[in-house]
C-alpha cells in the first residue's frame, strides 16, 4: 500500500515535469500592495502580454456588511489585480473566478460588474473605504458586463434580451415619423424617461465603464467625463477586466496612495451595496515609463 502511494507521487511529479514547457516563467509572487509598473502604454486588452510585467496582488474580498442593504453571504472570494501606468494614465487589470457570465439584463437578471476606487486626494489620512465620507470624496470607475455586451455589439431592443418577444407597436415607429429623424428620436425619448433626463446608466452604452464620485454610502453620482476606458473578456475561469483611468494627481515616485476594489456577482443578484469589496490597499508606482 505504501509503495503504491509513493509510486503515484513519483508519477505525478514526473508528469508535471514532462508537461511543463522548458521556458515557462515562474509565476509572479503575489505582493502585499498594488504596484503600478511603468510602461510605455497601458493596454486596454486584458489578454495583452504587457500585464505580465506587473506583479499580481491577490485582494481578498470582504462582505459589504456595513450599511443596508448588506451582503450577508460571501460570494466571490478574491480578485487578482495588476496595474500599469504610462505616467498620465493608470490601468488596473482585475481577474476573478466566475463560472457563468451574467451580462443580460432582465427583471431579475443582474450583471456581473467590478469597480476601482481611489481617494480624490492623496492625503495622509484616507477617507473611509466604504464609498468615502462627506467632504472627502472618492473616485470610482465602474465596469458592467451588460454594458460591455452593448459595446461588443448587442442591440438596444427587447428582442436582444428576449429573442422570442413579440411587440405590436412602438409610438416612435409610427409611419408618420421618418426613420432616424429628429422627430422620431424625440418621440422615442418620451418613452425612455431615464434617457430623456440624461441618466448615464440608461444608455445606449458606448463605453463599458462609468466614472463616478461618492462622499459616503448612498451618494454615488456621475463624475465629469474623465476619458476612462474599460474592456472585459471572459477567461476559462471567469472575467478579466481592464479599467484605465486618469493617473491620480501626485502619485509619482515614492508617493503612495490607496486603492480599493469591488466585485458584483450577477447570478447572486448582487447590485449596489450588495457586493464583495476590499478595504484600502496601498498603491505604489515603480519605474519610469
Amino acid at each position, binding site marked *: 500500500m505504501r509503495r503504491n502511494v509513493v509510486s503515484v507521487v513519483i508519477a505525478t511529479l514526473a508528469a508535471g515535469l514532462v508537461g511543463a514547457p522548458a521556458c515557462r516563467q515562474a509565476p509572479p509572487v503575489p505582493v502585499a500592495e498594488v504596484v503600478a509598473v511603468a510602461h510605455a502604454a497601458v493596454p486596454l486588452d486584458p489578454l495583452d502580454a504587457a500585464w505580465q510585467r506587473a506583479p499580481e496582488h491577490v485582494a481578498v474580498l470582504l462582505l459589504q456588511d456595513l450599511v443596508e*442593504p448588506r451582503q*450577508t453571504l460571501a460570494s466571490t472570494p478574491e480578485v487578482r489585480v495588476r496595474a500599469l501606468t504610462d505616467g498620465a494614465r493608470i490601468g488596473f487589470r482585475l481577474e476573478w473566478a466566475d463560472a457563468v457570465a451574467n451580462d443580460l439584463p432582465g*427583471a431579475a437578471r*443582474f450583471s456581473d460588474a467590478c469597480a476601482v476606487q481611489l481617494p480624490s486626494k492623496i492625503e495622509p489620512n484616507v477617507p473611509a473605504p466604504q464609498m468615502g465620507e462627506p467632504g472627502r470624496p472618492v473616485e470610482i470607475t465602474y465596469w458592467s458586463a451588460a454594458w460591455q455586451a452593448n459595446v461588443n455589439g448587442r442591440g438596444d*431592443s427587447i428582442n436582444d434580451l428576449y429573442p422570442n418577444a413579440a411587440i405590436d407597436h*412602438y409610438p416612435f415607429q409610427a409611419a408618420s415619423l421618418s426613420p432616424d429623424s429628429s422627430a422620431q428620436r424625440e418621440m422615442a425619448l418620451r418613452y425612455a424617461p431615464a434617457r*430623456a433626463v440624461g441618466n448615464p*446608466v440608461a*444608455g445606449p452604452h458606448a463605453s463599458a465603464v462609468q466614472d463616478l464620485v461618492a462622499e459616503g454610502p*448612498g451618494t454615488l453620482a456621475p463624475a465629469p467625463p474623465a476619458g476612462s476606458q474599460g474592456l472585459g473578456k471572459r477567461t476559462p475561469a471567469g472575467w478579466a477586466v481592464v479599467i484605465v483611468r486618469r493617473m491620480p494627481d501626485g502619485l509619482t515616485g515614492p508617493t503612495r496612495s490607496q486603492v480599493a476594489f469591488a466585485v458584483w456577482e450577477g447570478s447572486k443578484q448582487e447590485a449596489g451595496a450588495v457586493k464583495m469589496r476590499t478595504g484600502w490597499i496601498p498603491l505604489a508606482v515603480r519605474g519610469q515609463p
Partner: protein
Amino acid sequence: MAVVHNWQIGRSMSYWYPEHRPRRQFAAVFDVNKCIACQTCTLACKTTWTTGKGQEYMLWNNVESKPYGFYPLAWDLKLLKMLGPQEWHGGEYTGRTLFEAAPAGKRVLGWRPDDKDYAYPNVGEDDCAGTIENGAGLSVPHLTWFFYLARICNHCTYPACLASCPRSSIYKRPEDGVVLVDQSRCRGYRECVQACPYKKVFYNPITGTSEKCIACFPKLEAGEQPQCFVNCIGKIRLAGWISTPEKASPDNPIDYLVHVRKVALPLFPQFGLEPNVYYIPPVHAPVSFLRQMFGPRAEAAVRTYQSAAGDPDLAGLLGLFGCTEKVVPRWRRQDEQVIAQDETGREILRVPLREPVHVRKAFDEKYQVARTNCP
C-alpha cells in the same frame, strides 16, 4: 429606524424615516363590486405611459381575478407565506409589519419576481375557488366565488420602495403624496422591486432603471383624475385626497367613504405601508378571505355597502364615481341630487340620486309596429 403612527393598523410602528406626511395625500376608492375586468384601465395606462422599449411587460395598472389571478405571479401569496400567520386584536394589528419583519441586512421583508413571474398576467383568472357541481353555480348565493381586483401603485404613506432605496432615488411629493422614482438618480439596484409588497415598481431592462405608476401627476396638477380612472367603463373609481382620521371631513368624498362610513378599506393593511387606494370589498366573497386582504373591518364594510340602497348619502356619493374627469375634493347631497364641488365649493356637476326610468314599450301603438333592439 424611526417610530411612526399608522392609523390603518391602529398603532405605532417602525419605519426607516420619521413620519412626514405630505400637505395633502392622493387617494382613491375602488368599488370592487362594479368592476367587470374589461381591462380598459389597463390599456388606458399602457397606451399613455408604458409603450417604450423595456416597458413591454409593465402593467402599472392591472386587473386580476381573485383568488387565483395574479400579476406578477402569486405576488400576494408569496409574501403572506414569508410573513407567516399574524394577528389583529380588534382594530389593532399585533403582528409584524414588513418593516418590523425585515431580515438581517434588509430594510423591508420582500421578494423579487423572476422574469417568468411577469409573463402570465392573470393566468389563473378562470379558476374559481371550488368546483361547481350539479348546477350549483346557478344558485344564489353562489357556492363558488371570485372577484376582480384592479390595482395601481398605492402611493403609500410609508412606501416600502422609498424606504428600501439605498440611494434615496424614490421620493414622495410633499404637494400630493405621489411616490415617484427619480429617473435621473436611479441606478437599477431593484431593492424597491423587492420591497414593494404590491409589486408595483418595475425594472426597465433597456434603460437600467426602475419605473412605476406616477398617478398621472400632470393630470392631478391640472385638477383631473388619472387615465385609469376616467377611462373606467364600470365607473368603479374615484380619485381625491384623504385626511388622517382625526381630520376627516364628511364633505370630502374619500374621507366620507373611508373614515366616516368605513366602507372602503386598504389592501393588506397588515403590511404596514398605509396604502392610499381603498377598496369597497366584494359582497359575495368569504369573510375570512376578505379579512386577510382588507383587514378586520371587512365584514362591517360589506354590511354598510349592502345597506346603500336605503342610504341616500352613501348611494348618492357612489353615484358620483366616474361621472367627471375632474378630481372631486368636496361633495354634498341636496334632496334627490348629488353635487360634486371643487375646493372653493363651486359646482363641478350634479347627478340625480336615482336615474329616471323610461319604459320603451315593445309595441309602437302609433305606427302599429313591434320595436326591436336589433339594428
